């Protein structure tokens, strides 16, 4: 028996206020307007006044419309029936499939007890040398891709999704362009990965409030699978849109903004989502890759800044490649000692030499003289950019390591690399 109320007292932004009794905080309601039905969530209780945020937006809502409280917080269906399906931010199917109503789970579950986590120790192979070799991705890692608008971040996400050895891929799209959504759908379909994927898509044309639900829904479903022992990869694009939606709602609610208009709890809001990344000690895992576009390539902007404090490193996408400086996987030390004995040596040496190459470039552009050593570096840098950094390169880690040795041998003598003798003897191309 659901209670129904019709006395809407106030409509401001996407928030309506209705007089009602016995309503729970965060409860979900259904509101019927002449333009259709929408879900709404309770965001404030003050005596008899119940403030609700309408997922589909308040346009067309009349003060005489009916509000039906459901008696429970937001829920989504979960389970294997979802595989291959596409939904919007409220869990309504966007493909032509049937609506699901079984196996409903709450979103926004409590946080994991830290003592039930394990130290991450499994590498996720992607076939991209700039990741596998230099900044290894680790199962249960949360890692954003920092990028300016226009970089091929969605292509990168899709590639990682297809190649990563995971059981389930969940894509949460926020403020996604319609073409981008089609791109993801088509490419996963082409590569035969669609049957192990679930999409929750909010496009730029959809109401703002739905955007806020996307990460929660995606992660709630991911958690459900992880608890059943599955390895889940969650892709979120783009978290900056999520933050902007937060900002919009906070300001509508007359909250005091803290930094560039963003609400003071931006850090906690982001953390409660990213912290869902987990490796359970007796079950599966959740790995999160999220795109964060940086307005004006400014890493000190509140969104990338708060994100950087939460996540375990970041991939920095610039000029179409993963930039070795600025990119960091904080968990790489957990896995790159166990791959091949030359992994760390190649990683350190090639990056140091690449840093020297950048210095040489700078020296050259300032008109200083180039020494013989500088010339060697310039040659090395060009080959490195072409054969390692380019996102076209798609080779497994072992091949990338071999290629690393080949590049070094083509440019330097063994002593110039500073790599210890035992490794040189074992791997230096004869």
């Amino acid at each position: 028996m659901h209670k129904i109320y019709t006395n809407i007292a106030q409509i401001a932004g996407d928030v309506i206020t209705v007089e009602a009794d016995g309503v729970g905080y965060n409860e979900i309601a259904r509101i019927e307007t002449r333009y259709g039905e929408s879900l709404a969530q309770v965001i404030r209780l003050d005596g008899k006044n119940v403030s609700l945020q309408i997922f589909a937006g308040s346009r067309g809502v009349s003060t005489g419309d009916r509000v039906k409280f459901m008696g429970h917080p937001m829920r989504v269906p979960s389970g294997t029936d979802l595989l291959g399906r596409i939904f919007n931010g409220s869990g309504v199917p966007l493909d032509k499939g049937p609506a699901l109503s079984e196996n409903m789970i709450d979103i926004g579950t409590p946080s994991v007890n830290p003592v039930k986590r394990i130290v991450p120790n499994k590498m996720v192979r992607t076939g991209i040398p700039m990741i596998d070799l230099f900044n290894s991705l680790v199962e249960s890692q949360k890692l954003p891709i920092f990028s300016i608008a226009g970089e091929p971040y969605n292509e990168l996400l899709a590639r990682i999704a297809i190649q990563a050895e995971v059981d389930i891929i969940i894509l949460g799209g926020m403020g996604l362009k319609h073409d981008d959504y089609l791109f993801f759908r088509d490419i996963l379909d082409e590569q035969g990965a669609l049957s192990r994927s679930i999409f929750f898509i909010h496009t730029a044309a959809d109401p703002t409030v739905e955007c806020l639900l996307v990460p929660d829904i995606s992660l709630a479903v991911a958690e459900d699978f992880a608890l059943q022992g599955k390895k889940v990869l969650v892709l979120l694009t783009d978290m900056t849109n999520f933050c902007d939606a937060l900002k919009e709602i906070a300001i509508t609610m007359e909250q005091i903004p803290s930094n560039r208009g963003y609400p003071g709890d931006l850090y906690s809001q982001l953390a409660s989502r990213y912290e869902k990344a987990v490796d359970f000690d007796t079950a599966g895992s959740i790995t999160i890759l999220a795109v964060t576009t940086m307005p004006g390539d400014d890493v000190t902007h509140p969104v990338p800044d708060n994100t950087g404090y939460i996540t375990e490193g970041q991939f920095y996408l610039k000029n179409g490649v993963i930039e070795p400086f600025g990119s960091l996987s904080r968990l790489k030390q957990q896995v790159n000692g166990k791959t091949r004995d030359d992994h760390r040596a190649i990683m350190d040496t090639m990056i140091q030499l690449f840093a020297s190459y950048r210095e040489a470039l700078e020296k050259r552009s300032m008109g200083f003289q180039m020494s013989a050593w500088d010339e060697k570096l310039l040659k090395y840098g060009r080959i490195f950019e072409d054969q390692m950094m380019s996102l076209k390169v798609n080779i497994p880690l072992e091949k990338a390591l071999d290629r690393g040795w080949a590049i070094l041998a083509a440019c330097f003598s063994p002593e110039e690399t500073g790599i210890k003798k035992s490794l040189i003897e074992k791997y230096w191309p004869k």
Partner: protein
Amino acid sequence: MKRTGKIVGISGNMVKVECHSFIIQNEVAYIIHGAERLKAEVIKIRGNVAETQVYENTTGLVIGETVEFTDELLSVELGPGLLGQIFDGLQNPLPQLAEKCGFFLKRGVYMDALSDDKEWAFTPILKEGAKVRAGDRLGFVPEKTFKHYIMAPFSLQGDWEIASMSPHGRYDLTKPIARLKAGDGAHRDIFMRQNWPVKIPIEAYVEKLKPHSTLVTKMRLIDSLFPVAVGGTYCIPGPFGAGKTVLQQLTSRHAEVDIVIIAACGERAGEVVETLKTFPMIVDPRTGRALIDRTVIICNTSSMPVAARESSVYTAVTIAEYYRQMGLNVLLLADSTSRWAQAMREMSGRLEEIPGEEAFPAYLESRIASFYERAGVVKLYDGSLGSVTIGGTISPAGGNFEEPVTQATLKVVGAFHGLSRERSDARKYPAIDPLTSWSKYASFIDENKMKAARETLRKSYDIAQMMKVIGEEGTSLADYVDYLKGEFFDSVYLQQNAFDKVDEATTKERQIYILNFIHLNILKQEFIFQDKAAALRFFQRLRQLFRGWNSTQMGTNEFMAIEEELKVAIRERAKELIGKTHA
């Protein structure tokens, strides 16, 4: 008769409660939601409406639900059994919670911090008839490697007398070990466990003293140039990825203190997990026991309820003060105080207070100041000294130190270790910037040598800046050598290899010896070179030798061999022959 009220408003974790009896500011209240009891704290009272912050998710709460008030301020349990434990911000033991609730932190489940049934071997110190006051030691129990003193409750007012005292024996925490009587005939049973409100400092001591000795962290850059005092305070601000947490983790392992309290406040759970899983395996060289035996972890990670985050630093500092009362040196590491300040900001916003800078509340500065003021060296009633040292990390927005939390902290701490993005990008560890950091405390390093080292760094930096404009060609040989000296000092002394067993921690003796060597033989030495290339080659060679030296144990033959090799190399280029190298 319990005082109760009814919920009249809910916004986030802020719940308004109407109550027609009296209400105590900061008292704990429980919201009754079906079978669940959710803990909350009164933080504002207006008329007969109390605004409470709930330490849990408020989903599902309904207007009109009952709230019970408890008369008690938010408190922690103090007693034997704290060491080696992992608590959340409200002092719930996390391993026990996991046993009970599984993977997730279920709301409304609270557990005793200290186990009721564990027995401890108690030895009395005082006898019947002895006069006692708050904080006096009645007896002790062995806890790990420490003598854990059982003290008269800190809440005791005035002078009391011991009416009866239990004999030597094994007792659990539910059995009284003594009975006290007051002049007016009142009696009070004393247990090995006592409660203390977290936001009130424990003040059962004679006086607070000026910090005077250096706390050895075994980090050369800190100990030699920007030392921390035993009982002092310091802060580590830095942008993300600059290594704040790594620095804290290594300090928690190597610092020469008795007890380390780690307050993981609003940071990643993964980092706590690492500490949790590795500390039981690492042996503390000072005691020969596992590091976890001297550690208490308070962990309220970023996804746990924000109100509990606010209280977690107080929980931590109260436990630190408790062990200080036993005459121990305690180090409290708070990571990160910015998240704590943000928790205050969130609550302040919900209370609709008038915001200060960047929407932080106006009382931010005084809260930060009063937190750091809980550090200090104190002279206890028996004449012994105990101390609490506080080190807090700060995560300034955008890595910019001109923000309220950093600025408020800098006003009250004794040392500032500023991490820089440039140094961390250049893979320099620790990434503490030697040009902007400062310390008001004295080091065990001779003042003049310290000054000379700082001057070398400053000069080297200035020349490096100049070289960027005029190039190497335009720099004089003398300047170039000064530049190399600074670079050399930075790379072999200030930087440490955190992955090298020897280099990761340098003892006080070794720091004095090595700095003296560098001071006499390199920084103060004049060298003769034909050209810049020769100078560069010389310093590169020196650096290579020195790095090898850094990773050999002091006093071994290898150590002495490398020292000799270094001296030979220096002698070839030195203007004057080297005299004595030992001060």
